[in-house]
């Protein structure tokens, strides 16, 4: 499964408080209603904590959620 790039912005100004590491783009799986998407998202390279920015949650992510709910 290829990785989708959905964010252009750099999120390295966010740091994982527990690990002290800046967030780096990394492949993350998103799952909803039995559908899986491989998406590149800002993550902590140490613990894997992921950031879902507001514009993604309320934009493309919400669109896909709606689409899947209507399937």
């Amino acid at each position: 499964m290829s990785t989708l790039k959905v964010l252009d912005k750099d999120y390295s100004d966010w740091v994982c408080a527990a690990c002290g590491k800046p967030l780096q783009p990394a492949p993350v799986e998103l799952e909803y209603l039995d559908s899986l998407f491989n998406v590149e998202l800002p993550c902590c390279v140490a613990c894997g904590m992921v950031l879902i920015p507001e514009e993604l949650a309320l934009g493309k992510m919400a669109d896909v959620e709606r689409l899947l709910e209507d399937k």
Partner: protein
Amino acid sequence: MDQSEMRNWEARCTQEEPPRCRAACPLHVDVREFCTRMAEDRPDQAWGTLCRTLPLPSVMARICDAPCKKACLRNDAGGAVEMSALERACADFPGKTPPLHAPPSRGRKATIIGGDIAALTAAWDLSRKGVEVALHCPCDVTDMLNWLRCTAPLDYEATLRKHLETELATLRRLGVVIHEHAPVSLTLVDTARAEERLVFIAPDAYQALLEGDAPPDDLTLGTVRTGVFAAMRPAEPEQAFSPVFLAALGRRAATSMDRFYQGASLVAGREREGIFETRLYTNISTVAPVSPIAVSQNGYSREQAVQEAARCLRCECMECVHNCAFLAEFGSYPKQYTRRIYNNASIVMGTRQANTMINSCMMCGLCASLCPDGFDMGALCLQSRQDMVARGKMPASAHEFALRDMAFANGEDCVVARHAPDTARSAWLFFPGCQLTASMPDAVERTWRWLRTQLGGDAEKGGVGLLLHCCGAPAHWSGRTDLHAEAVRTLSAHLDALGNPPLITACPTCTDMLRKALPQAVITTLWEVFDQQTSDTAFPASPLAAQTELVLHDPCNTRHDAALRSAVRSLLHQRGIRVTEPERSGEHTECCGFGGLSESANPALGVKIREGRAARLTTASPADAVTYCAMCRDMLAKSGKRILHMLDLLLPPEPSEPCGPGCCGPRADNAAGPHAGPAPSYSERRENRIRLRERLITGYWQEAGRTAAPYEALRVTYTPEAQQRMESHRILDSDIRKVLLHTEQQKTWLENVTDTESKGRRLAMFRPTIVTYWVEYTLQDDGGYMVHNTWSHRMRIIPPGHRSGNGGNA
């Protein structure tokens, strides 16, 4: 919904029925379409419309006697549309006649005997179906013209001959062989039949040939002679010389002959071939009368024709659509919506495009109250929602927030089901409803106190008990029959435990829901109880001056409860209020947008609905409004409308005992009175319920209060932007607190390290159940949290290194 059920639903919507003019035209010319094009000054397109239906159009358009005029609804608003003159004007404008093509002959032959317009029409229609036609006229073109001229209202002799010759030339081009001055006899008929030609005997030849035979069949024009069709001149004088009636006879014969050739039924599906009564309903109550443009000797100029055509009302129903923001939102009408809903349910793979539409209906019953056939979109949508739930196809996000709210209202922090303090029985049971409790908790307490004082009660008869519970409406509206049944079961158990006393309900939705779900229960509305109290001292002083005007908004659930509506008006009158009724009131009142969980599934439409209703209340009068449903008040208040709840008026807080914080939203603090101010937020609504129960349990029954959840101890404040996001994204204070507590415990958050104003902001997330919440906050010096932003999503995150199905960090 199976196909026959779908057809039953579809049949009740008359929007696709033809308008009265078309039904009254024996040839069923699309008069509405024609007038539309003429009014747009597109005579070429209007001519195309005529040519689709009229035989020999350049003749027929000039001699049509327009029986549609009698049926025209404009008769009641200035005078019928002058269709004859419009047709003539259209025919006189240079327009291109659509090309006619005769399909290749398949050996089918017909003999037509006669020279009137019925004979010419039959020849026209049959030749266009690929039949080889021999037309035996007992006359010539001049006689034909004389006949046509005598029926034409204008002196068209000069041009009519030219047009008749043109159309006869068209007939010849279509393969019709015209025999002028042909001898007309039964031998001609017998010869034709011997050659297996079908025969049509037109009215002008009927008497000479078939006098004495049994008359032809009215429907098929078939005669006792197989393969011979005939028409007599109609007996009614107005039809006998009507070109369009006679042309319709020719068309009827041609249809029968074509069916005969094909071996098809001569009778099936012909009920609406002649003039018929349409079921189309058109409301012209607001149409201003406009007189017809006078027709001069030379007919209409182009400009006059445009003006006259513009008088056409373009009759359609759309009665429900014009009065419902939901029905208007999706661009069609109930018959089409029925088809969309049926198709939506039939999809196996692919996107169900009608889900949002189905979940957007307010189920308020306005459409059914306006529709002449009672089409109830709400009933159809409810059925669809139940079906979607049963098949696991209901979008999870559509009603989840509302169902969570219902579960919360029926949870241990909110429910009260008790006899009045110090009594072991209840003569009455007050059921305020969970939304009134959420909107105006202090008013609920005041009302209960009032009922206990006014209705009295003693140890023997019992007092006025209290039942704080949801009626189950959200479950019903969302199609969750299981949750609704469960809510009703729990309610019934509470009622049984309290001895099934008569209920006093404050919320119109609860009243309606409970009457349907618990038919054995005795239910009286609070407003009728109020109205029965005639004592001058029953109510405290009104907060409004005598003769204050208020616009009354009836909640949609009172549509069928005239007694309740009447009690409310009586109360307002007694209170010295001058009531102004909006245009849509009483049984035709509008929903505020909360009904059917419309606003929950389609927030953008919810805004349109409530703003539309608020605007119509303001159109009735700029005065403040009043209603008697907490959700109606709050929804309309969200649109900025100043609106009172009846309890603000009847049982206002004593000056010495103002509403508590959060009750009635900021209304209680408004010096201008209780009317204004937005509704309580979603979080405040929950707090109001908790606080009311807490106050009642500890204050009236002296019992211990609830134990607060750990997250409630956090000190959290919100920026105005964060509060706005919480409302629009339906994120609760409790959701945010859970995130913050989780973060505090897990020590996991993200921190902004830029040199911007966001520096130091933290970002935390938590997924308590099926929604992931994000909170952007700063830690305050006192250890409290200042929340700047929040958002949520339903997708589950599986972080890098975690395989699918291992859970992930959210």
